[in-house]
């Protein structure tokens, strides 16, 4: 009887265990997540972002999605999507709420004079804090400011003739609104930088043009051109190529008014992302990052480090979120790379494929709280990723850490390390807590694990100080004995030598 009862209890326990363990169904993640260590090698890590859902046209309450060009999430968590769907297939604006329920669909807009306005391949959209919508209507060469009812209130017309060459056609492509209401516009193929318009729609200036990159071959060619020209070769300049900076591809603005902007790819595959301040200088310079990496070439290298030549980076979108993390979308690898405010790679996620969570030809992305929305041209839908538990913990820790609240971040770093003991930034975070609590040898150990030599050196300096302080008497005794020995040798050295010599001779004799 007792035996039966025992086995029954065992059975119940087993059943309960199996049921409870199976309960949280793990979402399948169709891509590998990794980070780069100090030596630029990939180290596997848990997924920071997991795919949540793919919203196709029928899920969103519209007939079809055709070539989504841009997606934007406003302060009120409304999702704005621009695509080429609609009746004429030249442009449409859809507004959804944060649960992806359709609020409004604009196939055409109302012009200032009340007539019907049709969009023509719109590529960029943004919304300001007052709820006005701004659209870059690329093929109509106009930037529109409209109310939420679809009524155009202002048009940013093309800058005057003296601004552009005659051969250049103005094609506004992407737009953000600065904190003072100024509009920053990227025009397709414009090499002078970002166009700035004031509140009244007047063109003010260009700013932040990327630098021109020249290879050794380019310098040789420039030299040859100079020689040709000196021999009076007319029309030489038309034979040789001209050197122009790369054009900006996309931009976003953070709460502090810094403009994050990216180019598709660069010659040496570094410095694709810049964080421009008001004067147009890049404040995301390699020097702020290189302290943690083995070489400077690794430090400002965005995207995948192992680049296959045919599949170089193809960054099409950049988004900065409220916590200062910025992400770039790479369509060549169909991946999203997320960096913290200092430019350390936090997560990469996504990948090429046709499963939930992989992308075919991603066109734009936006941040909805912790979620990432990515539009895909081939998939004709919106892919939604959300932070995993690991990702959320790491994000919180990084936010605390960047505010300087090291001790608040400590429990989160410990959690991060439970998920992923290879996380370099977690080791640095814990190391800093030890450092602040004067536990230097523990701090050194953490910094060593993270390969952070700069912080290690700082901790070591104080550790050494403490070490000598603790053994002060011993060190003093050694020094005194050494000095005494030197004095003895100086005064009695000759006598000792002679004594030894005479003893030897005495022994021989």
């Amino acid at each position, binding site marked *: 009887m007792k035996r039966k009862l025992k086995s029954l209890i065992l059975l119940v326990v087993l059943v309960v265990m199996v049921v409870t363990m199976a309960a949280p169904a793990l979402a399948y993640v169709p891509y590998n997540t990794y980070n780069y260590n100090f030596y630029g090698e990939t180290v596997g890590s848990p997924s920071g972002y997991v795919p949540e859902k793919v919203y196709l046209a029928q899920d969103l309450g519209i007939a079809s999605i055709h070539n989504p060009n841009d997606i934007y999430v406003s302060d009120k968590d409304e999702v704005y999507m621009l695509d080429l769907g609609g009746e004429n297939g030249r442009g449409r604006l859809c507004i959804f709420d944060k649960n992806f329920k359709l609020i409004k669909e604009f196939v055409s807009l109302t012009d200032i004079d009340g007539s019907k306005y049709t969009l023509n391949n719109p590529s960029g959209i943004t919304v300001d804090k007052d709820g006005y919508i701004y659209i870059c209507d690329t093929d109509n060469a106009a930037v529109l400011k409209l109310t939420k009812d679809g009524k155009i209130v202002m048009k940013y017309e093309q800058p005057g003739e003296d601004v552009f060459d005659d051969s250049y056609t103005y094609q506004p492509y992407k737009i953000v609104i600065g904190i003072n209401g100024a509009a920053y516009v990227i025009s397709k193929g414009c090499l002078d930088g970002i166009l700035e318009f004031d509140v009244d729609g007047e063109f003010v200036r260009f700013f932040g043009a990327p630098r021109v990159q020249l290879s050794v071959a380019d310098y040789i060619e420039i030299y040859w051109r100079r020689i040709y020209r000196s021999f009076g070769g007319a029309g030489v300049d038309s034979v040789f190529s001209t050197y122009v900076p790369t054009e900006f591809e996309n931009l976003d603005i953070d709460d502090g008014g810094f403009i994050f902007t990216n180019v598709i790819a660069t010659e040496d595959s570094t410095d694709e992302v810049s964080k421009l301040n008001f004067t147009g200088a890049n404040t995301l310079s390699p020097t702020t990052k290189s302290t943690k990496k083995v070489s400077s070439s690794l430090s400002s290298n965005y995207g995948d480090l192992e680049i296959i030549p045919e599949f170089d980076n193809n960054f099409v979108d950049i988004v900065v979120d409220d916590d200062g993390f910025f992400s770039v979308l790479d369509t060549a690898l169909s991946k999203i790379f997320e960096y913290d405010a200092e430019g350390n790679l936090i997560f990469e996620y996504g990948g090429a494929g046709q499963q939930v969570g992989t992308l075919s030809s991603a066109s734009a992305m936006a941040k909805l709280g912790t979620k990432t929305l990515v539009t895909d041209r081939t998939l004709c839908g919106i892919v939604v990723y959300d932070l995993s538990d690991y990702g959320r913990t790491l994000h919180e820790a990084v936010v605390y850490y960047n505010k300087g609240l090291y001790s608040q971040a400590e429990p989160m770093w410990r959690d991060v390390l439970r998920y992923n003991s290879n996380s370099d930034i977690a080791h640095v975070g814990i190391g800093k807590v030890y450092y602040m609590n004067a536990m230097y040898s523990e701090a050194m150990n953490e910094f060593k694990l993270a390969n952070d030599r*700069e912080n290690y*050196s700082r901790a*070591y300096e104080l550790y050494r100080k403490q070490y000598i302080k603790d053994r002060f008497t011993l060190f003093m005794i050694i020094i005194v004995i050494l000095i005494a020995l030197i004095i003895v040798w100086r005064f009695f050295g000759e006598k000792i030598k002679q004594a030894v010599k005479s003893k030897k001779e005495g022994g021989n004799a």
Partner: protein
Amino acid sequence: MDKSFSFKGTINPLKLLNHPIDTVESLKEKKNGSIFSATILLALFTVSEIILDVAKGFIQNTSRVQDFNVIMVLARSLFMVLLFVVTNWGLCTLLDGEGRMIDIYISVCYCLTPLIISRIFETIMSNVLTADEYVFVDMIVVVLNIWFVCLVLFSLKTIHNYTLPKTIFNALVTIVGMAIVFFIIFLFVVLMQQLYIFFATIVTELMMR
């Protein structure tokens, strides 16, 4: 019998540091050095190179222990010294040098003394000093390396009885010669590999028949 072949050298290699000219000349005139002592110095140099690679402090050392390859260290220390000696000897016959191979070997090995000191010094200091303080060590190491080059040039000048310009010319040509020898060794290795593959294929072919 020549004194150079004797077991024990009768000069302290540390004397090179404060009396370089006297020491180099006495190495030539009085044959104070010996092959045995020279070889010990060369071995010390190789060992100090290995120690530097393995035991350099964490702050200054970005390479990992698992990436350490002793053959590479031997190639850049021991092999380079021997290659220099052989090449220089080969060239000095063309450039009217007086020195014999033994003389070149002994004096080059004795000249390694500042390098040995610099490697050991670096190893100890990199474990003791912080990143900011290490600048001085770098400076001292550079000075010791320059000192080594000067010593080699001076001893070559003495051994071969050259003028200074001719010594520098000789040293530069030696470096070019080393590159050529290196190239030939490389070619030889590649050819041998080809030959090996050739015979290996024949053997496989015969076995498969």
